[in-house]
């Protein structure tokens, strides 16, 4: 095919400057190998705990992460966000950190659990009174009952009694005191992780705190923390795009919880219970469902006995249950019209793609980048303008071990959204016919490679990628994923576009102003 003339920058005065410098030798090859061998060293303990280390001799710091193979995928409908909430609760301390007198506090904690059991029983008994009956979330026979109120009052009373024994912030404080940086935690659909970057000689602190967190967490200030999730959710909803992107996810998937937004409805936050959180905690935070990742100035040989000291005593537990929902074969094009005056008008095409570990998955990273200039050309050929973007993000995350979507979006300058959609479809049809510029393919691969170098340069980011791949599939898949992106060719991209970019596998999203009639 004939493509537009490439940039004229080579004719610019810059070239003269470059030529002036051309006598300089190119840079020596970097330490990173071309085959993406990261030098990960692995040890799996008898109890199932997985230890992954990348040794960087001389590095005075260590990026430390603990991954648990659980997340939003493991929540029960009506409890959306419960996994994220558990992460928050796991910052509230243990029986040895976060209390001024555990013996006294533990008696109150036990009474809180009893009071909550009574509350749950009261709610169950009043189910027909307090369940939603309205389509628009607006009707129930009664909001509460005297029994429910009595149980809530008792919990509040007990929590007040426990307050004097609480010492806030202990799961962060000692990391900070001993030079920890980058302390954070994240929960997404497929994983929960806690991370810190420590001086290499203080890595034992991570093992002590995380082993304690994994086995002895106490759910303190439960209702206060519930409201922090509400605050975070309100922050999401303040962005005009959030309702639209969540609706698109909901239309894109049929059965997999990967498409559920966190905090699906306000009521979900109010459903959280200590009993349910305890069930998640005990079921998933087991040693054989855990991966430790260290990158920096330590060796595998140094870490094995240290990890054994803090985690070796934990017995292997039954394998936690997995989400068994699988997406059915797509059988129909879906279309979502979102009328909104705050969002820029746009057209989005989402197509289902497989999860990490599938032989086709890596090439979609390339295809997303190659699709952008193809659509830009198609828009230009139709006399249209707009900003084109492509990603594989669902809710918060861009990669999954389960099916997700590739999303291509045009923020349209033109009011004729139908014409924009036609131009987008023409472009992806072209991709399926192999109308892909070799130079653009190489540029896309270079962009992905360079992005990866930036990840490798940051030990914390690299440790995340390794742990994330382990929870999605296996950490070994990461190297193959990177190699496959580099090996992708035009024929493979055309095959994928032809196979996946079909109407039955498509969701079309249209954002238009409220006062614009459909079709205009």
């Amino acid at each position, binding site marked *: 095919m004939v493509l537009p003339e490439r940039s004229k*920058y080579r004719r610019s005065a810059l070239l003269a400057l470059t030529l002036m410098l051309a006598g300089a*030798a190119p840079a020596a090859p970097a330490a990173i190998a071309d085959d993406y061998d990261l030098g990960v060293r692995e040890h799996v303990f008898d109890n199932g705990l997985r230890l992954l280390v990348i040794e960087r001799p001389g590095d005075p710091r260590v990026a430390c992460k603990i991954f648990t193979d659980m997340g939003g995928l493991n929540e029960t409908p009506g409890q959306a966000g419960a996994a994220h909430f558990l992460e928050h609760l796991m910052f509230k301390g243990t029986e040895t950190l976060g209390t001024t007198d555990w013996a006294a506090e533990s008696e109150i904690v036990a009474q809180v659990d009893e009071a909550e059991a009574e509350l749950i029983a009261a709610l169950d008994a009043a189910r027909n009174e307090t369940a939603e009956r309205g389509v628009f979330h607006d009707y129930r026979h009664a909001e509460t009952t005297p029994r429910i109120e009595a149980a809530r009052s008792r919990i509040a009373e007990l929590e007040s009694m426990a307050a004097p024994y609480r010492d806030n912030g202990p799961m962060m404080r000692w990391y900070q*005191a001993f030079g920890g940086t980058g302390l954070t935690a994240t929960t997404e659909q497929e994983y929960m992780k806690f991370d810190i970057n420590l001086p290499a000689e203080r890595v034992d602190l991570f093992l002590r705190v995380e082993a304690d967190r994994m086995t002895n967490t106490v759910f303190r200030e439960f209702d206060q923390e519930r409201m922090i999730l509400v605050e975070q959710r309100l922050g999401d909803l*303040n962005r005009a795009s959030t309702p639209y992107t969540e609706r698109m996810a909901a239309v894109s998937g049929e059965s997999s919880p990967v498409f559920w937004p966190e905090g699906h409805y306000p009521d979900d936050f109010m459903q959280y219970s200590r009993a349910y959180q305890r069930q998640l905690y005990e079921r998933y935070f087991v040693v054989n469902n855990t991966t430790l990742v260290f990158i920096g100035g330590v060796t595998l040989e140094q870490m094995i006995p240290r990890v054994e000291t803090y985690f070796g005593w934990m017995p292997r537990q039954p394998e936690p249950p997995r989400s068994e929902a699988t997406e059915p074969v797509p059988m129909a094009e879906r279309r979502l019209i979102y009328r909104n005056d705050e969002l820029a008008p746009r057209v989005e095409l989402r197509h289902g793609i497989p999860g990490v570990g599938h032989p086709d998955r890596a090439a979609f990273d390339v295809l997303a980048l190659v699709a952008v200039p193809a659509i830009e050309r198609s828009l230009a050929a139709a006399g249209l303008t707009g900003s084109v973007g492509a990603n594989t993000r669902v809710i918060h995350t861009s990669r999954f071990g389960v099916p997700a979507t590739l999303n291509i979006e045009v923020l349209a300058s033109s009011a004729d959204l139908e014409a924009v959609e036609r131009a987008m479809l023409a472009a992806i049809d072209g991709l399926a016919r192999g109308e892909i510029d070799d130079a653009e393919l190489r540029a896309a691969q270079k962009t992905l490679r360079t992005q990866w170098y930036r990840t490798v*340069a940051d030990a914390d980011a690299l440790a995340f990628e390794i742990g994330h791949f382990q929870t999605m599939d296996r950490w070994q898949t990461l190297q193959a994923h990177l190699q496959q992106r580099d090996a992708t060719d035009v024929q493979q991209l055309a095959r994928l576009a032809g196979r996946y970019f079909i109407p039955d596998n498509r969701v079309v999203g249209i954002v238009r102003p409220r006062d614009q009639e459909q079709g205009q």
Partner: protein
Amino acid sequence: MRGRSIVLVLLLIAASATPAGAQQEWVHPRDMGLADSAFVAPDPESLRYPLPGGAVAYISVDDLVPLVRFTALIGAGRADGAGAAGFAAGLRAGPASMSSSDFAELLAGMAALYEVEQGQTETRVTLEVPSEDVVLGLGLFAALLRGPLGAEAGDNSQDTASDRATGESGPVLYEGSLAAAVQLLEATLFADHPFGGAFDNDAASNAVAFRERFVVPQNVVLAVSGDFELATVHNALAVVFDGWSGEAPPLRQHPAPALPDARRVHAYDVDKLQGWVAIGHHLPEVPVQDEAALMVMNYIVGGGHFDTRLFRATRDRRGLTNDDSGFPEQGFRGPGVYTFRTYGRPQVVPLLIDLTFEEIDRIRAEPVSDEELFVARGALADGEYSLWFRNAAATTTTYAREWLRHRSHERSASWQDRVRQVTTADVLDAARRYLHPDRMQVVLVGPLEAIRSAPSLEGEPTLGDLEAAEH
């Protein structure tokens, strides 16, 4: 005898079968005997490299990945006269030798990162490219700094939060973050000051004059890091900066404005689900002897982490907000800003404001605990300090900035010792010297009707009370 042996064997078997967890002793982190941090910062003198005209570059080879980063720190910014914003716009658009779209395409072709950030008195330009493009990247970087500015120079279309804000008489562009509230606060604090954020819309000639005046060897420090042959970069720098000269610009000092005479609330109405609050006043230039105590004090009261007094009061114990933190942002050649930032659902906003002031009052009124001091000193001396040198890019940029500002590396060299020597008395003194709650301005951006109608939760003043009272 045999019986005793059997018992012994059984005991041994039982001991090995007992889950070690039952015996697990959770030694408190304080008592673990953790070793002192062995971190030593790289020697800045080993990284310094002289450039033509008296300019200085800090250069560090790091072959972990095939990337090269160039950073230029220029000692002039928005407050330094006409043309500043146009100069930044010109840098963003690329050199005059190509159109801005060609420049963007060139950057994309290299998968480059390119950033231009302009503060009140400094401008930073950063370009990161793959090592295979090091020659092209350096040429481009030099062209940006030394060549003619692009056609877009002076075409600065940025506006400010204050331009967009019309108070209760009209809509405010709500960013969905604290940025709008902070910008509005800074616009209030520096209303009649060169730091007032009055982005100019200069003619291109002003941008050119700005560049000629300030982008001179004595006013620019470079940082170069990444995977390259050192000799290659030395030679290339000598070529591209050959003949670079210019008079050092006169030192420009921007005196701090007077503190506001009273606490006031400035409210802006937006139809959103939360209210965003920025509280603060300007921060005078902090002498080196006060710097560590100020940072330790702020770390304890609201240092942007999960274990501050503000976090415990507003988040842990009450569940009011996702964040309530303090930010002492030091100025250079002029005042900085000390802000406290928080946000929450409408019904808790007045309590958030009240609790924030309560903690500011408390840190000014009574000494911090020994444990708070221990944690803050460790966090800043061992943790924060290491971030300045976490890789070659951070190290060279840290030293370049320090040289641009102070022409010495004494501050970074003494930082750990200064922090470790801070006492509870120093913290109290810093709080009283640098926090003036009765002069702080409160900017609130949120759904005002809902916030005003919120009942008092713990006896705190309502928004109406706060607006009526001027301290």
